[in-house]
């Protein structure tokens, strides 16, 4: 049996994990979610069964951790000693504006869309991660995309 060093797992999947963290938690909280994901994975790694779908396993953790981080942050009050006097400078150009909209989707649709398009899992793998049928995944993705289109380009 070959034992795959954890570093090789990290190298192979860190970009997908990062994308899911950004998509679910937002750019500012993605770093915490990313760290928590890999620490949790490292803790469990020696017990991971042979032949496991490592990518799906990691993205399951990433999705859960990113939701935790995002929720935890949302509950905490923002401490500030003064109000800004002028409008903040515009944010640098980002490619994830749409992901802000994804975060507002109902949780089922959000999860399916995030794992499919940020994690690049196949629908059958998304189904495995979420514990639902392949058809249900396709339905959630279709509904989610429809909702996004309504939000982004109101009719």
């Amino acid at each position, binding site marked *: 049996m070959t034992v795959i*060093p954890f570093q090789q797992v990290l190298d192979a999947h860190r970009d997908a994990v990062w994308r899911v963290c950004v998509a679910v938690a937002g750019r500012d909280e993605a770093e915490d979610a990313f760290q928590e994901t890999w620490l949790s994975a490292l803790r469990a790694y020696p017990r991971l069964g042979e032949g496991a779908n490592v990518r799906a396993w990691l993205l399951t953790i990433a999705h859960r951790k990113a939701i935790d981080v995002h929720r935890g942050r949302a509950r905490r009050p923002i401490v500030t000693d003064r109000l800004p006097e002028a409008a903040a400078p515009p944010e640098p150009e980002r490619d994830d504006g749409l992901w802000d909209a994804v975060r507002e989707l109902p949780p089922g649709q959000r999860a399916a869309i995030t794992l499919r398009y940020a994690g690049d899992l196949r629908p059958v793998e998304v189904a495995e991660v979420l514990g639902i049928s392949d058809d249900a995944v396709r339905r959630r993705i279709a509904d989610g995309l429809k909702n996004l289109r309504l939000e982004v380009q109101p009719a």
Partner: protein
Amino acid sequence: MSRLAAPTTPPPADLLARLAARAAEEGLLDVAYARVDSPLGPLVAAVTPAGLVRLAYEDFNGGLDVVVEDLAARISPRVLEAPARLDDIRRQLDEYFERRRDRFDVPVDLTLARGFGRRILEATAAIPFGETRSYREVAEAAGNGKATRAAGNALGANPIPIVVPCHRVLRTGGGLGGYTGGVEKKETLLRIEGVLL
């Protein structure tokens, strides 16, 4: 819009370094490794929480991946590249190769050697800079003066060459004997230590 593009900016460069540091803090990093350049060619150095566990001549041991996979199989799969954790040994090796250091002050983890082989390496670790011993003398120090062949095998499989100075063990009568990594490396090390001119 029928296709949603993934967020594409890569993770920040320092995030992975911070991840390795936190993994170590939380006791989750069983083996940390890094490449170390040396006048003898690239080395792969690895530490466990107990100390330096491996120093491999990269070219002679099948390359970085092979060395790291071997560590994962023999010690633990919780292996990360974490150069910051090898800073101390890297600095000491640099000083040694620049002839500014004649002993290594790093804890050594001989986990990869067992039984008599481990005793041979412990006896070898006690040979001072610039001195040499014969295979028989090392075997004697390890408790069995007749086991010179076993001593040779244990030294050939030394997981931590240079720091556990198997290059200081020579044939009776002064022949160099073999060396993990090729005998020219042994000559270079003995020259650094002033044993060979």
